[in-house]
């Protein structure tokens, strides 16, 4: 952790879909950089309720290769807009129990405004454009495929 003589690392976009439990600490650590003073993160977690129904768990699926491409585009948009260093976007697939993370987004930057705004933009864009689907599983043993209000082709329905 000397920093002083470090070869300056190239900006990295780290995109991962996994059935494993997500670790906020690990994703944060992936974007830390000695030339940065700020890491901003967003963690999406499973809620236990939707419109009064008790949610037992969520199940996620994705069109993985396209989802990775769409996230790569979002990373590229972010780099056009803000001077950020590293970007990590993790999304869990399969069953996600209540209170566990479905997504972790982390961005590092020299100064805080860039990473704070970039993280906000990243989760907004992910919800609007990345082909991932969530099915809520309710206590009453029913289930429902959800849609983000940000989904760009079905928002008005």
């Amino acid at each position, binding site marked *: 952790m000397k920093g002083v003589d470090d070869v300056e690392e190239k900006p990295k976009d780290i995109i991962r879909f996994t059935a494993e439990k997500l670790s906020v600490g690990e994703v944060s650590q992936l974007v830390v950089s000695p030339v940065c003073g700020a890491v901003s993160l967003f963690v*999406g977690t499973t809620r236990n309720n939707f419109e009064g129904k008790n949610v037992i768990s969520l199940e*996620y*699926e*994705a*069109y993985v*290769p*396209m*989802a990775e*491409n769409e996230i790569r585009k979002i990373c590229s948009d972010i780099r056009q807009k803000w001077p950020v260093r590293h970007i990590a976007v993790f*999304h869990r697939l399969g069953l996600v129990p209540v209170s566990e993370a*479905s*997504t972790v987004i982390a961005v590092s930057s020299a100064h805080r405004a860039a990473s704070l705004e970039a993280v906000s933009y990243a*989760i907004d864009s*992910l*919800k*609007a*454009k*990345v*082909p*991932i*689907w*969530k*099915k809520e599983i309710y206590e009453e043993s029913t289930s429902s*495929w*959800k*849609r*983000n209000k940000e*989904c760009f*082709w*079905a928002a008005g*329905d």
Partner: protein
Amino acid sequence: MVPRCQIEVLYFAKSAEIAGVRSETISVPQEIKASQLWKELETLHPGLADVRNQVIFAVRQEYVELGDQQLLLQPGDEVAVIPPISGG
């Protein structure tokens, strides 16, 4: 007659439940409007009519609405049926 080719159709989420498959290979005209391609899928899986107004295609991983746009398909191209997304 427009030449035909075989493409791979992928179904996700609700569309996969309705179609009963997650992927299938079908033969379609190489030049076809997106809306016409959708009609071919409805012929194979009539239940898909229910979600017509909610879905979009991804052709070679790029979004294409189910409208008048002319698709130029190559053998082996991947076309996905994309219901409203809900990641995050």
